[in-house]
């Protein structure tokens, strides 16, 4: 089979991310139980949920770091199990782990990852990203010497190096102070304006309402609630969150 032709024919899709009946088991423990989720192109969706609900597992599956136990997942129209390498070229994944080599400088980290993604005009792209994320002055500093906020920004720059269509972001506000979190919200807003598709998880209800178009509530491995943030206040979301998570966790 001609793989590239097949990838092209598979790519015509309505949704950036389509998840149908996704399940994931760790031994006898079911972490995800029939998750159904559709993320349209250019939209930003936050997945909320208590600890252990399966948010990180869901994102790790979409990022091809973990294999699903069942169900169907398509990213940018491509089947996750068949075209994992092509999918990795189309997604950027930011985790609470930075994936940065402490003994390499900011520039060297981005250059290394850029080479792994075959980024054209790499040096120029790296400089552009360092400037965009306010890290130009830290260009030659070792990653381990950067503050947590700077590392988080560098990690985001790493995920955006290859200009992915879809950004997967796990707990972006974890371990950030107020100022760094505000800066991150600004970055998210810019990415949305540029048309990126963003799927993120967070515990921060207020920021999820501010920063994204849609919220989905994942409880005990299932999506139990979805809403558009334009018609939703923080108070309404909090009430729903408390009600839906009370009896299931």
């Amino acid at each position, binding site marked *: 089979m001609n793989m590239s032709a097949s990838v092209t024919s598979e790519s015509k899709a309505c949704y950036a991310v389509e998840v149908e009946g996704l399940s994931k088991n760790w031994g006898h423990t079911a972490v995800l139980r029939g998750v159904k989720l559709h993320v349209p192109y250019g939209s930003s969706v936050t997945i909320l949920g208590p600890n252990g609900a399966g948010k990180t597992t869901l994102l790790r599956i979409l990022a091809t770091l973990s*294999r699903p136990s069942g169900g169907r997942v398509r990213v940018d129209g491509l089947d996750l199990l068949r075209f994992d*390498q092509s999918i990795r070229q189309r997604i950027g994944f930011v985790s609470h*782990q930075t994936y940065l*080599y*402490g003994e*390499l400088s900011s520039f060297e980290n981005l250059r290394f*990852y850029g080479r*792994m993604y075959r980024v054209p005009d790499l040096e120029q792209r790296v400089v552009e990203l360092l400037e965009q994320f306010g890290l130009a002055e830290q260009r030659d500093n070792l990653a381990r010497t950067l503050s947590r906020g700077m590392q988080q920004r560098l990690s985001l720059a*790493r995920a955006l190096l*290859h200009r992915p269509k879809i950004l997967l972001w796990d707990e972006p506000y974890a371990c950030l102070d107020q100022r760094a979190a505000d800066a991150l919200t600004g970055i998210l807003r810019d990415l949305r304006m540029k048309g990126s598709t963003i799927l993120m998880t967070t515990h921060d209800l207020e920021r999820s309402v501010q920063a994204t178009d849609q919220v989905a509530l994942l409880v005990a491995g299932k999506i139990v609630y979805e809403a558009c943030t334009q018609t939703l206040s923080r108070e309404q979301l909090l009430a729903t969150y408390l009600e839906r998570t009370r009896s299931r966790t």
Partner: protein
Amino acid sequence: MTDWRDALNVVVKDVATEMRTKEALGAMLVFALLVIIIFNFALELRSDNAREIAPGILWVAFAFAGMLGFNRSFALERENACIEGLMLAAADRSMIYVGKMLGNVVFMSLAEMCVLPIFAALFDVPVLNPALWLVILLGTLGLCAVGTLFAVMAVSTRAREVILPLLLFPITVPLIIAAVKATGQVLDGQRLSEAFVWLRLMLGFDIIFTLLAFLGFEYVIEE
């Protein structure tokens, strides 16, 4: 799609990191030298038995030093979960294995090059011998092929320092025996053709285990 540039990128990154920390190379060198020096003083070496004993000591030093290097090479990837960063790259994951393995070959070879002159001086054996280098190269490739795969398996376990030797040494016993025998014959001044049986075994080991590791790495690296 398989692209050898990915493997090369990983090697360049590993070498750049090691140049700064010198942790793997330093540990390998110190350990290998200690083994050789301690055995040299512990065993009663005479001119007639040195060549029988020396090959075993040399390969004990290389094998254990290599193990330290394999552990270190993935400890680096464990920090900040960098191994996942590599897995996220749009590269064939088998090329990550090739890159890590070649990096280990580079570090182990550097350590071996430093150890050999001291080994020659202490055991009074000739090491400026291309046949000996060939034996060492084949042994190093085999150790690195298996060691790199097992190091990535061990790194995700809690008892990683214990798991790696438990996995590595039973599998590499045939390789190490062949390496010791071939080294002995070469140091004894025999022709390379006389060590051919052992060299063939080492070459077979290298090819089989490199291929198995190459094909299996993607499955091993996943959760």
